């Protein structure tokens, strides 16, 4: 029997409003599983239901129907929440406190052992060692975000749920945060990330889920999602007949006929037929690889595909 999943959601539905106001469906049958020790990124357009899902995950909101488990247990169980570190999108911090006082407060509420030294070490990890004696009210947005991240790390949690963790942090600071998150992954923690910075998600996460209108549209390993299923990048040796290759169904890339060519083939048979036509024209094949897209293109395709689905399919999906 394998270790329980870090996050397990089945058939999650969440509808807000009802009695005296309009009903708004935030989640429409969400299914998701995140294994222990994984770095999972959840992306999607505004209003997709990402924050609602995170709130249900942590017991901050309750689902209308469906089941969710956190580290194999009930999200509202105290013992489960003790092993979770959470950074909300807009963390409200006490203005008149210093960072060590805030972290000590969080540590007490988590029941986590702490000392003034350990809290200062934690502040140093997030780059706030020099600001330990300043009041939080004087912090910039990025500094507040770093402090929130430090609070999430208290108690060495098994699961880190981070909602826009690098929001407001400068590019160099983001590198530091990424390194910190990778260190946590190395420690064995599971990472669940919600970020609009897709480049950030690509750098940190091994698996990604795309959420739209309350459902997971696509989900899987980053490299699988970003690899096209029907577009290929093909390189030929210099001296190939460009016209013959165009006639064989190849399109030249941005570098022109001397660079890589693109080929669209829905099946391996069609791909090989195209390659055979190219070789018959005298072209020498050097390299064939699936074309890679960035996460932005993957997201766009997934959301457009969902919007373009026939109404009955969309209704059924809803």
């Amino acid at each position, binding site marked *: 029997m394998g270790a329980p999943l870090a996050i397990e959601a089945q058939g999650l539905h969440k509808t*807000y409003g009802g009695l005296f106001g309009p009903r708004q469906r935030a989640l429409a049958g969400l299914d998701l599983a995140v294994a222990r020790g994984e770095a999972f990124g959840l992306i999607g357009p505004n209003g997709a239901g990402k924050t609602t899902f995170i*709130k249900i995950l942590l017991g*901050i909101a309750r689902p209308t129907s469906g089941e969710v488990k956190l580290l194999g247990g009930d999200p509202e169980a105290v013992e489960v929440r003790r092993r979770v570190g*959470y950074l*909300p999108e807009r*963390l409200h911090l*006490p203005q008149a*406190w210093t960072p060590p*006082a805030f972290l000590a407060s*969080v540590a007490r509420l988590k029941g986590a052992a702490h000392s003034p030294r350990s809290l200062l070490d934690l502040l140093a990890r997030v780059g706030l060692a020099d600001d330990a004696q300043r009041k939080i009210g004087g912090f910039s947005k990025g500094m507040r975000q770093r402090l929130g991240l430090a609070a999430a790390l208290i108690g060495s949690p098994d699961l880190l749920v981070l909602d826009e963790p690098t929001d407001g942090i400068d590019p160099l600071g983001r590198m530091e945060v990424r390194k910190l998150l990778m260190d946590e992954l190395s420690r064995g923690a599971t990472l669940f990330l919600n970020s609009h910075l897709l480049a950030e998600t690509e750098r940190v996460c091994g698996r990604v889920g795309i959420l739209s209108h309350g459902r997971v549209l696509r989900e899987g390993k980053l490299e699988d999602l970003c690899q096209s299923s029907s577009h290929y990048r093909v390189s030929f040796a210099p001296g190939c007949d460009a016209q013959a290759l165009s006639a064989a169904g190849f399109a030249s890339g941005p570098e022109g006929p001397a660079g890589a060519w693109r080929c669209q083939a829905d099946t391996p048979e069609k791909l090989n037929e195209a390659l055979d036509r190219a070789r018959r024209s005298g072209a020498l094949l050097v390299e064939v690889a699936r074309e890679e897209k960035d996460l932005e293109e993957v997201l766009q395709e997934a959301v457009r595909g969902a919007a373009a689905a026939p109404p009955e399919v969309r209704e059924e999906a809803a």
Partner: protein
Amino acid sequence: MLAVAADLIREATKRKWFLGLAIAITAVLVTLSLSLRMEVVDGALAATRLFGKLAKNPIQSVDVALRPVFFAVAAVTFYGGSVFGIVACADFAPTLLSPGRIEHLLALPVRRWQLLAGTFLGVLALSLAAALYGSGGLAVLLGVKTGLWNWRLLVAGLLSTVSFAAVYAAMLTAALYARSASVSAAVGFGVFISGIVAGFRHDLIPMFEAGFGRTLFTGYTLIFPRISALAGAAMDIAGNQPLQVRSLWSLLAGVLVFGGGVLTLGIWRFEQKDF
């Protein structure tokens, strides 16, 4: 729960309202200690000087002479303390429930009812500390100057906290329905004033003609704790006078039932609410 209460107290010590209150109480006590002279001869208050001016009071035994002072202190602690508490504590609950803070707290290994109860306890602790500091400080001051040590002033301070507990329970519950310091304060004042009226219920009922109006007024005032009656009892206790109310325990029971009931409603609402 105690950690939540402690954090609230820590937060309050940084706020100008409470710093101002502490400074004001201390200033009054220091000023009185330096400027008030009381000459007691054979247990009688012979002369009183304030800022060097002689107060024209008849020579009376100290406890009789100081009775009006004890009444006044109890009244100020009770009524003044409640009004101050309503204004100064109105935004604790809305701040607890503010976006970004409540999500963070609910994700911690703390049960929902503990967050609410901790907030309630923290406010009560502040109220009690202020009431005991003011009334206790004055008891010590007058004890040193006259030799009359009236610890009943502390009991009056305790009763004012019990009364404020019922008012704050309503404020806390109101904040769960409308996250607003203004609404919370308005509900606090509403309960406070209704409680004062409820305490004079038996005197006011005859002013209504028998019928629907009287029934409505009677029913309305039955809901609220009899704050003015409890204030009167606190003043009687402070002044070492026989209680004018029939039963202090029934008064306290009424306050506790109201406060407990409203707080239970608040906890139920908090447990159900999505954030």
